[in-house]
């Protein structure tokens, strides 16, 4: 978590900059295998924040806030965890039939204010902002950016994962199961914010290995009134879904602030 406490000393501040703090890089979890057969199996999962998908080339994901939910809703253990320079990695032993939900949750707090006529901004923990007296400054604007970086792995037949939803932030409520995506077949995902359908979310979809293409060929979708998008993936491979929005307010430690929520998902599409 320490690495997120780093203060960013920026001389120029723009609203756009502050409102899109998470899109600067791509956060992802990538399992070694998405679909498995047998009684007891293992997957190795990589986590990184990178420019290219899925090449770790910026900074490793922190493993301090990884949540692994087994098909029965119980917590599964993160094993052999290690944070490298560019990539974090861990193993999971799968011993229950069904779908495991793997998520990295985290939050960063942003503040911007005027000091002696100079615009200032910083990114830190809320405790640090309070300690420094920044939350009490006259002109301060505060925002909490909460994220869920997710992927799914299935041993045997896929199981319902929406039963394990937390009702906090952006969550995927699958209509088509995330481990049941096939080339040229229409699929539907629904998104919720705090347990309610998230309409008008902009969802970006990018196929992995963009490093070997001149264009990312990203696809854009907008959720409908039910929070749903329908999509058809053109090629077999691994895909990254990403969405975020600044909506509503949140209160923490007696401080009311703007709230940004972000969500990313890694899935694979198989050829028939």
């Amino acid at each position, binding site marked *: 978590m320490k690495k997120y406490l780093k203060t960013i000393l920026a001389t120029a501040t723009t609203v756009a900059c502050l409102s899109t703090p998470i899109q600067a890089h791509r956060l992802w979890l990538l399992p070694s295998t998405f679909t498995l057969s047998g*009684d007891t199996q293992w997957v190795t999962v990589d986590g990184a924040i990178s420019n290219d998908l899925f090449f770790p080339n910026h900074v490793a994901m922190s493993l301090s806030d990884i949540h692994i939910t087994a098909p029965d809703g119980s917590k599964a253990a993160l094993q052999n965890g290690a944070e490298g320079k560019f990539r974090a990695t861990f193993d999971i032993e799968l011993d229950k039939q069904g779908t495991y939900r793997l998520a990295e949750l985290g939050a960063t707090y942003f503040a911007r204010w005027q000091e002696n006529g100079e615009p200032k901004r910083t990114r830190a923990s809320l405790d640090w902002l309070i300690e420094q007296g920044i939350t009490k400054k006259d002109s301060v604007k505060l925002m909490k950016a909460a994220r869920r970086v997710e992927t799914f792995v299935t041993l045997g037949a896929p199981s319902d994962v929406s039963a394990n939803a937390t009702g906090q932030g952006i969550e995927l409520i699958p209509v088509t199961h995330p481990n049941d995506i096939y080339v040229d077949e229409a699929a539907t995902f629904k998104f919720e914010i705090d347990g309610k359908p998230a309409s008008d979310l902009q969802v970006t979809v990018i196929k992995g290995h963009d490093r070997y293409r001149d264009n990312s060929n990203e696809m854009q979708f907008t959720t409908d009134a039910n929070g749903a998008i329908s999509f058809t993936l053109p090629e077999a491979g691994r895909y990254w879904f990403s969405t975020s929005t600044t909506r509503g307010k949140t209160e923490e430690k007696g401080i009311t602030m703007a709230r940004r929520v972000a969500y990313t998902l890694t899935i694979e599409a198989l050829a*028939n």
Partner: protein
Amino acid sequence: MRTILTLAGASLMMEATAIADTNITIELPRIHVAEYHRPYVAVWLAQPNHKVIANLAVWYQQHDGEEGEGKSWLKDVRQWWRRSGRKLDLPIDGISGPTQAPGIHEVSIPQGNDPFKNLPAGDYILNVEAAREVGGRELLRIPFTWPADGPITQTMSGSTELGDVTLTVDATN
């Protein structure tokens, strides 16, 4: 080579005619590669909309080896895994068996046995899918109509992991 295989296939079928109304011969080609493993093979009957009627054969490594469970690679027979395998509790008597060597193999369903006993009239697909460790994967889909007006003999040839696959149905019903 071709003649020998045909003769071998014919003799198998002649033998089979006496006891079976539905016969499937599956040729697993000999593949000359540095590292060869016998393929995992699934044979199943489905409707054109992919609804599975019955599994007819699943050949996979029955024991656990140095590399883990034999069932670990069932998911690589990926169309079968999607449509049926992942919902099954293997092994299944009379359906699952060990992997097979290159050559011609036979799956016979005697008259009056499931799934053909009460099979409703309609269009069906015989699916044969093979996936080989450190190798490729191939799926053949042979369409046929049930019941047949006359005897059915349908052959489809694979190009990589499967050779000739022949479905033969006697029209004695």
